[in-house]
């Protein structure tokens, strides 16, 4: 399968995403420059990587959302194309309206840089079939604005349709207040679109795909996608 990793000015996890998909997950992967106006026809999944696109000016993801490639990414997603937004990429997806809600400033007033535990709350998505249902995974976070917020109706809709894919929890798998690193409603770490082709999460799966980097819990996402496109 073929990944396209979008490079915005200020992206800084683009190389990590390229490395994880190409070297760790053994897929074909290449960069897509933010000034491109279309997604090449052979791309199966677009990754919006972490970083500080456009300096995080105004709000995280607010300016990137209007960059030339995002119009193409929105069309791609609306036509069923797969899109994975990691950290800043998740923020861009909410700003673009491809995922509901918004990422507000962390309630602890800090830029959180840590390894966090999460539960895989839905392993039926194309992004998560390689995980067991309710599997406990550990991934790093690195963000100042990752507090997931949406109105109650949206939260209810996400919860009742299993659209919360990853949820912050403690090492025993309990999603309590202490294990919530940023004040996200319902400990939400990652969500998926209604039709299952757009996923966004604040933690960084691409940073835990290589044993040299201390873990491989992120690989499941790329293995799941590989399986999806192999059997599709």
């Amino acid at each position, binding site marked *: 399968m073929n990944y396209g990793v979008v490079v915005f000015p200020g992206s800084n996890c683009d190389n990590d995403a390229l490395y994880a998909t190409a070297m760790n997950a053994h897929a074909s992967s290449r960069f897509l420059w933010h000034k491109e106006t279309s997604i090449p026809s052979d791309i199966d999944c677009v990754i919006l990587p972490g970083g500080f696109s456009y300096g995080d000016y*105004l*709000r995280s993801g*607010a300016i990137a959302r*209007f960059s030339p490639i995002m119009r193409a990414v929105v069309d791609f997603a609306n036509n069923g194309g797969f899109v994975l937004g990691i950290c800043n990429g998740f923020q861009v997806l*909410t*700003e673009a309206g491809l995922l509901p*809600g*918004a990422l*507000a*400033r*962390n*309630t*602890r*007033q800090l830029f959180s840089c840590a390894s966090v535990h999460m539960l895989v709350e839905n392993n039926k998505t194309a992004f998560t079939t390689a995980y067991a249902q309710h599997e406990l995974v550990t991934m790093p976070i690195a963000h100042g604005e990752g507090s997931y*917020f*949406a*109105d109650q109706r949206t939260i209810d809709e996400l919860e009742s349709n299993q659209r919360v894919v990853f949820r912050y929890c403690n090492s025993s798998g309990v999603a309590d207040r202490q294990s919530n690193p940023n*004040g996200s409603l319902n400990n939400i770490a990652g969500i998926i679109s209604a039709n299952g082709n757009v996923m966004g999460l604040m933690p960084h799966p691409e940073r835990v795909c290589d044993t040299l980097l201390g873990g491989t819990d992120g690989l499941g996402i790329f293995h799941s996608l590989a399986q999806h496109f192999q059997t599709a």
Partner: protein
Amino acid sequence: MVDGSVSRLHVPIMKTFTAMITVTLRSGILDVQGKTVEHALHTMGYTSVGHVRMGKHVTFTVEAETEGHARSIAQESCEKLIANPIMEDFDIRIQEVA
């Protein structure tokens, strides 16, 4: 267009307005910056201060025929880019530049 004047003869008289926009977090969302500043003010002895809210101040000029038109441009700018209506409120003041 006024009094049935023919559109091709209608030369709009454009005026310059200043839009002054204040963006703040919606009331239901914890404003951590505001809270931090409030705590600092209390530590300094200003214990009568409360409800500190932090926000953004954005200004720009607009060329428009009327104040209403200038306001609608500012309103659209806020809804689409300057504020995120999911978590932010905004307030617009329009002033004609003399």
